[in-house]
């Protein structure tokens, strides 16, 4: 009898939690912009995951290209071919993998640095805060692209370096936002209570501050991914990407270098550009939708 009551109580609470989760999911699904963004992203993520099935790497061989150079779109090559006779569709599909991978990796680095600096500055305050924030300001005002170009040139050309460079130039915004939130969190009574418990700094930050800034970091992540993908394209377009892998930026670069514009080979130029725009749009739309869900004041009544 007692056990039955306990179980039903637990079941009721679990149901309540599932309902809360569903209501967040429901809010998201009723947000047209968010759903459109999510749909775009799902298509591209699937494309990236199954890239090797959809466009086997063998077909991207430079020496053994399947078609003639710069063929216009046809039934065989839906998006035409590049200057070496490779299918542009295959290139774009393969490129999605690198673009998304670098985007996510760069975002992870950016979030890690941003969260670390933001939490440290916000929690410890005083001169730690002053120094870290001036450091952040310094990164914030440095012209972003030249810094990325210089870093990429110095550190060399590989996927990891590109991700690192993007991470280094995008973290200051996150650091600022996280710091602001930590400043309010550390004055909350439960942090004082944790201190009264005898908790040390590590415990307070790890168990009480971080879990509470996490939603903010998460919402920020989505928006940073878009910036990271765009930056990756920019750097690759400028020839600073990894020369051994195909990304949307590097496709644009070779199209530009081969004179696709003056040759009227629009099929070489437009698809990768469109992909970049769509993915960035997808992330931004999802980001705004999450913002609205996390901040009820932004919801439409």
């Amino acid at each position, binding site marked *: 009898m007692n056990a039955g009551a306990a179980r039903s109580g637990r079941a009721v609470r679990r149901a309540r939690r599932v309902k809360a989760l569903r209501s967040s999911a429901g809010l998201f699904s009723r947000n047209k912009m968010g759903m459109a963004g999510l749909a775009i992203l799902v298509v591209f993520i699937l494309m990236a995951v199954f890239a090797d099935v959809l466009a086997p790497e063998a077909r991207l061989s430079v020496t053994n290209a399947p078609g003639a150079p710069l063929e216009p779109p046809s039934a065989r090559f839906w998006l035409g071919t590049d200057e070496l006779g490779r299918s542009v569709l295959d290139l774009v599909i393969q490129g999605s993998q690198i673009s998304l991978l670098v985007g996510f990796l760069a975002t992870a680095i950016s979030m890690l640095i941003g969260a670390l600096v933001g939490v440290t500055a916000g929690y410890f305050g005083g001169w730690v805060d002053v120094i870290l924030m001036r450091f952040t300001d310094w990164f914030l005002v440095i012209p972003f692209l030249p810094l990325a170009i210089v870093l990429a040139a110095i550190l060399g050309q590989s996927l990891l370096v590109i991700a690192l460079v993007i991470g280094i130039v995008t973290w200051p915004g996150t650091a600022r936002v996280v710091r602001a939130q930590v400043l309010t969190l550390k004055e909350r009574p*439960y942090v004082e209570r944790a201190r*009264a418990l005898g*908790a040390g700094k590590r415990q307070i930050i790890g168990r*009480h501050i971080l879990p509470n800034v996490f939603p903010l970091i998460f919402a920020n992540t989505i928006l940073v991914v878009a910036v990271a993908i765009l930056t990756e394209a920019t750097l690759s377009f400028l020839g600073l990407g990894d020369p051994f892998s195909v990304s949307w930026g590097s496709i644009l670069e070779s199209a530009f270098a081969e004179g696709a514009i003056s040759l009227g080979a629009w099929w070489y130029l437009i698809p990768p550009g469109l992909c970049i725009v769509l993915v960035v749009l997808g992330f931004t739309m999802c980001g705004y939708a999450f913002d609205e869900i996390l901040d009820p004041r932004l919801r439409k009544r």
Partner: protein
Amino acid sequence: MNGNLLEIQDLRVLYEVRGAKAPAVDGVDLSLGAGDAVGLAGESGCGKSTLALACLGLLPRNATVEGSMKFEGAEVVGAKPGRLRALRWAGISMVFQGAMNAFNPVKRVGDQVVEAILLHEDVSKKEASGRMRELFEHSGIAPRRAEDYPYEFSGGMRQRVMIAMALACNPPLVIADEPTTALDVMIQAQILNLLAQLREERNIALLIITHDLSVLAQVADRVAVMYAGRIVEEGSAAELLTTPRHPYSRSLVGAFPVIGDPASRGVPTGLPGDPPDPAARPPGCAFHPRCPSAFEPCDRIDPSLKRYGPRLAACHLVDREAEV
């Protein structure tokens, strides 16, 4: 009875505000023995909570502490951070004002109690969680609710969890800072009964901080009334609450209607004015500008805390009455 658990002597807490040092606690002596229940009463801004935070070494950075505070014979003022952290909760724990906010909203309440145990004792998570369930049971909460989040509790239940948490490490002293504020009267009575019952079962000393004298009547043996950072009257709860001698205590007691005395019901007397700014303490007795019975020496000479039989008071009027 003769307090050796907590010995506070001439304790001062100074807040540095815009270059000036303002004493929020200004020379307090207070002692508590094992199992004592002492109430600290006074209106907002008289230094009660500052005193409580000082016991745990939790004052903000702009505060300096002077004087002496010994817990179980060891000095707390100026103790190293490591020792302070060991003392917190295992020696002195606290029931916070407004339990609504004293919980991390994204952690299950049970885990937050377990956290307290694990911080101080070398026990497995399983043992700690077993103890947490026991504490919940003792505090009148169904142990299965340990898996809930703070928002799923009512104010009274949350205060019960807070009390369970305060007892987690079996501390000899629990400080309750406004334990019943923002609770309705029925729940207040339940919480106070719980505190009194736990005190009896575990021989815990209680330091109850409140502006609500009815709380003290229910749980405290001894009451100290604070005004402007000092104790102005101290005595047994029964005596002080029925026959207060210091005009300030009288005003505090007079602000409540007495149950069973219909005459007092219509006219709870108030006391106009606010306690003085700690940075600008009036000369003489700090209370004289608001005192209804201030007379000649009050605005010049600061009365010291003197013993009158079993009671202590700092007032020229009490002095004069005692002489007559």
